[in-house]
């Protein structure tokens, strides 16, 4: 077989063309990987936001806590359920929460964004082990104190520790910052539910959340609660609840991303086809010579295919490399479904990396296969005549 050094050196000899073609593929892979990383980051954020063992109850028909309303008497009925787990301190792991959106200005610009304010109860923090207080302290119940999620404290005016926000005709002092990793909670502000409900003149909670003693009982609990005549509620596993919140965005990203990738990859593949046909045309005499010397057709085929695959591979690795830097960036945007601020990262995983390389090899293959066949099927005499 024709040695690999032949292919490598040929690629090097026509450097400009090789790099341009590989560059095209690198860019396609970059876009491809970014979209995958974005979707994965979004998915991770929202899925990890919930716990498998937690159950969320919102009003039937509402799509999110913001639209939902759970009356006080309904909340009381839920709190008395036996399936609620008991925490280490002997108290039930249940919380009645109220969620609203408020418009806050971002630091440095005048642009406003909708931020989730969650009125919490005593059980809220224990229900969410992913949430950790990193600065300051928890707000005192009965006061106008609030704590801000790390992403909000960082990005929004007046939301940092020691600062205060004004809404509902009151000043609310930020006494602490909490971090919930990549989850949606990091983009929220928490305070006492009763205080917040007063300030916003709301009579009803938005949701009730509790930890199931036995997560396997979910189906049964769901059925009972949804058929209970005094309640008009819908029950969801917390993980599923948050997953649904991202579906619209995930779908949007997916469609936009895939179409861009497809279109751009067509461009990159055509670039590769052109490059390889030109390479074949330029090396016609060589091909004839190699065949005359006794190299079989398939070695010629393989040689040109290998060059094309190499271009793809180089492009793929380059694209992946640059895309990996995106991990340093956080996207902060509005979730289309909930209208609220959502911050999430680009998340690179090994499966994504493999898909990227595979994709680049496929592009290289498609780009090279036809020219390689042309090279292999050349008539020796005709090829030699062109020297």
């Amino acid at each position, binding site marked *: 077989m024709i040695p690999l050094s032949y292919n490598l050196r040929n690629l090097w000899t026509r450097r400009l*063309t090789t790099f341009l073609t590989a560059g095209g593929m690198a860019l*396609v892979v970059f876009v491809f990987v*970014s979209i995958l990383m974005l979707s994965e980051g979004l998915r991770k954020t929202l899925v990890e936001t919930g716990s498998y063992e937690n159950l969320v109850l919102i009003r039937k028909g509402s799509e999110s806590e913001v639209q939902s309303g759970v009356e006080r008497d309904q909340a009381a009925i839920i709190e008395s359920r036996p399936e609620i787990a008991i925490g280490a301190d002997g108290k039930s792991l249940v919380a009645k929460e109220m969620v*609203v959106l408020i418009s806050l200005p971002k630091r440095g610009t005048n642009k406003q964004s*909708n931020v989730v304010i969650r009125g919490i109860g005593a059980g809220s923090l224990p229900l969410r082990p992913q949430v950790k207080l990193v600065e300051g302290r928890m707000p005192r119940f009965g006061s106008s104190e609030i704590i801000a999620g790390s992403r909000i404290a960082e990005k929004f005016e007046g939301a940092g520790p020691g600062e205060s926000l004004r809404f509902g005709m009151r000043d609310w002092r930020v006494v602490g910052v909490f971090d919930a990793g990549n989850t949606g909670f990091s983009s929220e502000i928490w305070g006492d539910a009763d205080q917040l409900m007063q300030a916003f003149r709301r009579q009803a909670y938005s949701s009730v959340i509790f930890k199931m003693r036995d997560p396997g009982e979910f189906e049964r609990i769901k059925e009972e609660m949804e058929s209970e005549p005094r309640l008009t509620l819908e029950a969801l596993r917390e993980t599923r609840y948050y997953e649904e919140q991202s579906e619209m965005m995930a779908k949007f990203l997916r469609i936009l991303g895939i179409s861009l990738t497809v279109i751009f990859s067509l461009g990159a593949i055509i670039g590769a086809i052109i490059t390889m046909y030109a390479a074949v045309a330029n090396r016609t005499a060589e091909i004839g010579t190699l065949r005359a010397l006794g190299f079989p057709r398939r070695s010629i085929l393989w040689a040109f295919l290998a060059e094309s695959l190499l271009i793809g591979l180089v492009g793929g690795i380059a694209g992946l490399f640059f895309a990996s830097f995106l991990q340093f960036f956080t996207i902060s*945007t509005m979730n*289309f479904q909930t209208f609220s601020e959502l911050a999430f990262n680009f998340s690179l995983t090994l499966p994504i990396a493999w898909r990227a390389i595979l994709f680049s090899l496929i592009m290289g293959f498609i780009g090279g296969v036809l020219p390689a066949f042309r090279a292999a099927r050349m008539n020796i005499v005709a090829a030699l005549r062109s020297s």
Partner: protein
Amino acid sequence: MFTLKLLFKNAFRHKLRAVLTIMSIVIALVAFGLLRTVINAWYAGVEASSATRLVTRNAISLIFPLPLSYKEKIRQVEGVTDVSYGNWFGGIYIDEKNFFANYAVEPESYFRLYPEIIIPPGEKAAFLRDRKGFAAGRKLVAKYGWKLGDTVTLKGTIFPGEWDFVMRAVYRGRDETVDESAFMFHWDYLNETMKKTIPRRADQVGFYMIGVERPDIAAGVALAIDSMFKNSLAETLTETEKAFQLAFIAMSEAILIAIQLVSLVVIVIIMAVAANTMSMNVRERMGEYAVFKTLGFGGWRIGGLILGESLLIAFIGCALGIALTFPVAGAFGKALGQYFPIFNVNTRIFSLYAAASLVVGVIAAIIPAWRVMKLPIASGLRRLG
């Protein structure tokens, strides 16, 4: 014309390569056009805004309501010509996938404020008469095959329950910036129902639409309204319709910027590949050009021929790109219909196509053409072997 024929023959000497080059230009242009169309669609609401309309909402955020009692006070503000109000309903038609804008409005004032919504008088009267009636845009009606008199049920999300409506009117937009996929019904129907089911939520308005006399007083009127309600239970935020729409878009700015950046870079690369290919052609034919020179053709003339060939390929790509943009954008618009009710190709982008093609054609030809013009004949002939 002889020259055009010559250019054509030369450009298509390697048919396959010419076709591939044209294809890559087409792809780059169509991708660019598609992305610009997406960005335009994002800003669709802004395009539809009027300089003489204001939007008033609760200062805390859009999800908090305003009292109905504000209406009269707003009406009294100097410069205000008309006041309408409404609530975002957000109902679901059968399935979440069938997303379209649906809201309750005070119809008479709303139609006065939005003359770009055109309804046949008979249907308008029927809609105004029937409190359970709704008016829908013709695109929406076409999509679901509704007919006048049909009952359509929406599942309430913000306002719980199953809500029945009867189709009384179909509207169309005065121009293509109007969303023809919206669904409007009577605010009174919503309010009366709330009074019966959840009384504390009655007499609450989601937003006020306000008409002002002239665009230049808009800012002043907005300020006047907001100061009127300052320090009350429901403080207001009033902005021009355009500012309101822009604020919405600003929240997804990150994605928009990302899309614009990506599109630009990729397109540049694809064009660079095309340019490289075209210049490859020229490099391979150096020998021929030397022969032309010996025959007496001047350097400029040959340079011109090279440029001409290059531009020919580029503009064929441009033409095909323009032709393909419509079907591709159409398919895209369908797939993302629920996010972009308005997805139109703005023909102004085609002048950008032409500019890009021109640039590619010139860049591809310029260095090779220069070399040919400077080429000493002997070295060129040597290449012929």
